[in-house]
Protein backbone atom coordinates (compact mmCIF):
# COMPACT_ATOMS: atom_id res chain seq x y z
CA UNK A 1 0.00 0.00 0.00
CA UNK A 2 1.46 3.30 -0.98
CA UNK A 3 -0.24 6.60 -0.83
CA UNK A 4 0.77 10.17 -0.86
CA UNK A 5 -1.26 12.64 1.07
CA UNK A 6 -1.46 16.39 0.93
CA UNK A 7 -0.93 16.46 -2.79
CA UNK A 8 -2.25 19.97 -3.08
CA UNK A 9 1.02 21.21 -1.65
CA UNK A 10 3.78 22.15 -3.99
CA UNK A 11 7.08 20.31 -3.92
CA UNK A 12 9.37 21.58 -1.19
CA UNK A 13 6.55 23.26 0.68
CA UNK A 14 4.80 22.06 3.78
CA UNK A 15 5.21 18.48 4.72
CA UNK A 16 4.32 15.21 3.13
CA UNK A 17 4.08 11.78 4.59
CA UNK A 18 4.54 8.75 2.40
CA UNK A 19 3.38 5.57 4.08
CA UNK A 20 4.79 2.22 3.06
CA UNK A 21 3.20 -0.62 4.86
CA UNK A 22 4.76 -4.08 4.65
CA UNK A 23 3.24 -6.47 7.16
CA UNK A 24 3.93 -5.15 10.63
CA UNK A 25 6.55 -2.71 9.47
CA UNK A 26 5.58 0.84 8.63
CA UNK A 27 7.82 3.40 6.98
CA UNK A 28 6.91 7.07 7.05
CA UNK A 29 8.89 9.38 4.82
CA UNK A 30 8.77 13.01 5.85
CA UNK A 31 9.22 15.76 3.30
CA UNK A 32 9.54 19.50 3.55
CA UNK A 33 10.10 21.78 6.51
CA UNK A 34 9.40 20.21 9.88
CA UNK A 35 8.75 23.12 12.22
CA UNK A 36 6.01 23.95 14.72
CA UNK A 37 3.78 25.08 11.87
CA UNK A 38 4.02 21.73 10.11
CA UNK A 39 4.46 19.39 13.07
CA UNK A 40 0.85 19.37 14.24
CA UNK A 41 -0.37 18.03 10.93
CA UNK A 42 2.48 15.51 10.77
CA UNK A 43 1.66 14.19 14.25
CA UNK A 44 -2.02 13.79 13.39
CA UNK A 45 -1.26 11.92 10.18
CA UNK A 46 1.36 9.80 11.91
CA UNK A 47 -1.21 8.82 14.55
CA UNK A 48 -3.72 7.90 11.84
CA UNK A 49 -1.13 5.80 10.01
CA UNK A 50 -0.14 4.04 13.25
CA UNK A 51 -3.76 3.35 14.18
CA UNK A 52 -4.41 1.89 10.73
CA UNK A 53 -1.28 -0.28 10.52
CA UNK A 54 -0.59 -1.15 14.20
CA UNK A 55 3.04 -1.88 13.28
CA UNK A 56 5.72 -3.49 15.43
CA UNK A 57 8.42 -1.49 13.72
CA UNK A 58 8.17 2.10 12.62
CA UNK A 59 10.84 3.63 10.42
CA UNK A 60 10.88 7.40 10.13
CA UNK A 61 12.73 8.39 6.98
CA UNK A 62 13.96 11.97 7.07
CA UNK A 63 15.57 12.02 3.62
CA UNK A 64 13.13 14.65 2.34
CA UNK A 65 13.29 16.98 5.33
CA UNK A 66 14.82 20.26 4.18
CA UNK A 67 14.65 21.89 7.62
CA UNK A 68 13.88 20.71 11.12
CA UNK A 69 13.81 22.40 14.52
CA UNK A 70 12.90 21.02 17.96
CA UNK A 71 9.37 20.35 16.71
CA UNK A 72 10.90 17.31 15.01
CA UNK A 73 12.14 16.09 18.38
CA UNK A 74 8.59 16.18 19.73
CA UNK A 75 7.42 14.21 16.68
CA UNK A 76 9.95 11.39 17.10
CA UNK A 77 9.46 11.24 20.88
CA UNK A 78 5.73 10.88 20.32
CA UNK A 79 6.41 8.19 17.69
CA UNK A 80 8.58 6.21 20.09
CA UNK A 81 6.02 6.50 22.89
CA UNK A 82 3.29 5.19 20.61
CA UNK A 83 5.49 2.36 19.32
CA UNK A 84 6.47 1.24 22.83
CA UNK A 85 2.77 1.16 23.72
CA UNK A 86 2.26 -1.17 20.75
CA UNK A 87 5.06 -3.40 22.02
CA UNK A 88 7.41 -2.34 19.24
CA UNK A 89 9.88 0.40 18.51
CA UNK A 90 10.80 3.21 16.15
CA UNK A 91 14.02 3.87 14.27
CA UNK A 92 15.23 6.88 12.31
CA UNK A 93 16.73 6.77 8.86
CA UNK A 94 18.34 9.05 6.27
CA UNK A 95 18.74 12.13 8.40
CA UNK A 96 20.15 15.19 6.60
CA UNK A 97 23.02 17.08 8.31
CA UNK A 98 20.93 20.01 9.60
CA UNK A 99 18.33 17.78 11.24
CA UNK A 100 21.07 15.53 12.62
CA UNK A 101 22.66 18.47 14.44
CA UNK A 102 19.31 19.16 16.11
CA UNK A 103 18.88 15.51 17.13
CA UNK A 104 22.48 15.39 18.36
CA UNK A 105 22.06 18.52 20.48
CA UNK A 106 19.06 16.90 22.15
CA UNK A 107 20.75 13.50 22.56
CA UNK A 108 17.78 11.91 20.82
CA UNK A 109 19.68 8.85 19.55
CA UNK A 110 19.74 7.51 23.10
CA UNK A 111 15.95 7.23 22.89
CA UNK A 112 15.43 6.35 19.25
CA UNK A 113 18.18 4.53 17.38
CA UNK A 114 19.57 5.67 14.08
CA UNK A 115 19.33 2.79 11.65
CA UNK A 116 22.60 1.43 10.31
CA UNK A 117 23.74 3.75 7.55
CA UNK A 118 20.95 6.04 8.63
CA UNK A 119 22.68 9.37 8.36
CA UNK A 120 22.99 11.05 5.02
CA UNK A 121 26.11 13.03 5.98
CA UNK A 122 28.49 10.14 6.42
CA UNK A 123 32.10 10.85 5.59
CA UNK A 124 31.50 14.51 6.29
CA UNK A 125 33.63 16.05 9.01
CA UNK A 126 31.81 17.52 11.97
Amino acid sequence: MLWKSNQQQKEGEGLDIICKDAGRELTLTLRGELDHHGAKDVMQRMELALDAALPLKLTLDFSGVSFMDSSGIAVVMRAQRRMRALGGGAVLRQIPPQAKRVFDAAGIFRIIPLEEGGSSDEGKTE
Partner: protein
Amino acid sequence: MKVKPNNYIAIEFPSRSVNEGLARAAVAAFAAQLDPTLDELGDIKTAVSEAVTNAIVHAYPQELGRIALRASIFDGNLLEITVRDWGCGIADVEKAREPLYTTGGEERSGMGFTIMESFMDALTVRSKNGKGTVVTMKRRIALRPSRR
Protein backbone atom coordinates in the same frame (compact mmCIF):
# COMPACT_ATOMS: atom_id res chain seq x y z
CA MET B 1 27.71 53.16 24.97
CA LYS B 2 25.94 51.26 22.26
CA VAL B 3 27.94 50.07 19.28
CA LYS B 4 26.23 50.65 15.97
CA PRO B 5 25.85 47.68 13.67
CA ASN B 6 27.41 47.73 10.22
CA ASN B 7 24.18 46.46 8.76
CA TYR B 8 20.82 45.29 10.05
CA ILE B 9 17.31 44.20 9.12
CA ALA B 10 14.18 44.63 11.21
CA ILE B 11 10.92 42.92 10.43
CA GLU B 12 7.66 42.66 12.30
CA PHE B 13 4.89 40.14 11.92
CA PRO B 14 1.86 38.80 13.81
CA SER B 15 2.26 35.61 15.83
CA ARG B 16 0.95 33.28 13.14
CA SER B 17 2.85 30.01 12.87
CA VAL B 18 3.08 30.35 9.09
CA ASN B 19 5.57 33.18 9.72
CA GLU B 20 8.14 30.84 11.32
CA GLY B 21 9.47 29.88 7.91
CA LEU B 22 9.58 33.48 6.76
CA ALA B 23 11.50 34.56 9.85
CA ARG B 24 14.30 32.02 9.48
CA ALA B 25 14.50 32.51 5.71
CA ALA B 26 14.84 36.29 6.16
CA VAL B 27 17.66 35.93 8.68
CA ALA B 28 19.39 33.31 6.54
CA ALA B 29 19.27 35.58 3.50
CA PHE B 30 20.63 38.48 5.56
CA ALA B 31 23.38 36.36 7.14
CA ALA B 32 24.55 35.16 3.72
CA GLN B 33 26.73 38.29 3.39
CA LEU B 34 28.94 36.87 6.18
CA ASP B 35 29.71 33.90 3.93
CA PRO B 36 28.65 31.26 6.46
CA THR B 37 29.08 27.54 5.91
CA LEU B 38 25.97 25.42 5.39
CA ASP B 39 26.30 24.16 8.96
CA GLU B 40 26.52 27.70 10.34
CA LEU B 41 23.52 28.77 8.29
CA GLY B 42 21.56 25.74 9.48
CA ASP B 43 22.38 26.53 13.11
CA ILE B 44 21.24 30.14 12.71
CA LYS B 45 18.00 29.17 10.99
CA THR B 46 17.27 26.61 13.68
CA ALA B 47 17.92 29.07 16.53
CA VAL B 48 15.68 31.71 14.90
CA SER B 49 12.96 29.13 14.40
CA GLU B 50 13.09 28.17 18.09
CA ALA B 51 12.96 31.76 19.34
CA VAL B 52 10.12 32.77 17.03
CA THR B 53 8.16 29.59 17.79
CA ASN B 54 8.49 30.29 21.52
CA ALA B 55 6.99 33.74 21.01
CA ILE B 56 4.16 32.34 18.89
CA VAL B 57 3.31 29.47 21.23
CA HIS B 58 3.98 30.96 24.67
CA ALA B 59 3.91 34.77 24.49
CA TYR B 60 0.49 34.94 22.89
CA PRO B 61 -1.30 31.71 23.82
CA GLN B 62 -4.83 33.04 23.30
CA GLU B 63 -4.50 35.91 20.86
CA LEU B 64 -2.42 37.16 17.97
CA GLY B 65 0.35 39.54 18.96
CA ARG B 66 3.28 41.43 17.56
CA ILE B 67 6.72 39.86 17.11
CA ALA B 68 9.75 41.95 16.16
CA LEU B 69 12.78 40.27 14.67
CA ARG B 70 16.05 42.09 14.23
CA ALA B 71 19.33 40.79 12.83
CA SER B 72 22.48 42.91 12.99
CA ILE B 73 26.05 42.52 11.83
CA PHE B 74 28.87 43.94 13.95
CA ASP B 75 32.62 44.14 13.43
CA GLY B 76 34.38 40.80 13.56
CA ASN B 77 31.76 38.90 11.57
CA LEU B 78 29.42 38.93 14.55
CA LEU B 79 25.73 38.26 13.92
CA GLU B 80 23.25 39.31 16.58
CA ILE B 81 19.60 38.28 16.44
CA THR B 82 16.87 39.71 18.65
CA VAL B 83 13.35 38.31 18.90
CA ARG B 84 11.01 40.53 20.89
CA ASP B 85 7.40 40.12 21.90
CA TRP B 86 4.96 42.07 24.03
CA GLY B 87 3.17 39.00 25.35
CA CYS B 88 2.63 37.42 28.72
CA GLY B 89 6.28 36.96 29.66
CA ILE B 90 8.07 33.94 31.11
CA ALA B 91 7.35 33.38 34.81
CA ASP B 92 10.61 31.55 35.52
CA VAL B 93 13.31 32.04 32.89
CA GLU B 94 15.80 29.70 34.59
CA LYS B 95 13.23 26.91 34.62
CA ALA B 96 12.21 27.59 31.02
CA ARG B 97 15.82 27.18 29.91
CA GLU B 98 16.12 23.71 31.44
CA PRO B 99 16.18 20.85 28.91
CA LEU B 100 12.84 19.05 28.45
CA TYR B 101 10.94 21.66 30.47
CA THR B 102 7.83 22.75 28.59
CA THR B 103 4.39 24.14 29.25
CA GLY B 104 3.48 23.44 25.63
CA GLY B 105 2.15 19.91 26.04
CA GLU B 106 2.91 16.90 23.85
CA GLU B 107 3.47 18.96 20.76
CA ARG B 108 6.58 20.62 22.17
CA SER B 109 9.80 18.91 23.17
CA GLY B 110 11.05 21.42 25.73
CA MET B 111 14.36 21.56 23.87
CA GLY B 112 14.03 25.01 22.27
CA PHE B 113 16.33 26.94 24.59
CA THR B 114 18.79 24.02 24.72
CA ILE B 115 19.02 24.12 20.92
CA MET B 116 19.46 27.91 20.91
CA GLU B 117 22.20 27.64 23.53
CA SER B 118 24.12 24.91 21.78
CA PHE B 119 23.84 26.44 18.30
CA MET B 120 24.68 30.03 19.22
CA ASP B 121 27.68 31.50 21.04
CA ALA B 122 25.59 33.50 23.50
CA LEU B 123 21.94 33.59 24.54
CA THR B 124 20.28 36.06 26.86
CA VAL B 125 16.61 36.04 27.82
CA ARG B 126 14.96 39.05 29.45
CA SER B 127 11.35 38.68 30.41
CA LYS B 128 8.80 40.56 32.43
CA ASN B 129 5.46 39.14 33.46
CA GLY B 130 2.74 40.72 31.40
CA LYS B 131 5.21 42.92 29.50
CA GLY B 132 6.97 40.57 27.14
CA THR B 133 10.23 38.82 26.37
CA VAL B 134 13.42 39.69 24.52
CA VAL B 135 15.67 36.87 23.36
CA THR B 136 19.11 37.93 22.12
CA MET B 137 21.45 35.49 20.41
CA LYS B 138 24.95 35.99 19.09
CA ARG B 139 27.02 33.95 16.72
CA ARG B 140 30.42 34.75 15.33
CA ILE B 141 30.81 33.47 11.77
CA ALA B 142 34.24 31.99 11.20
CA LEU B 143 36.40 33.76 8.66
CA ARG B 144 37.25 31.31 5.96
CA PRO B 145 40.46 31.24 3.90
CA SER B 146 38.42 31.66 0.73
CA ARG B 147 37.19 35.03 1.92
CA ARG B 148 38.85 38.12 0.55
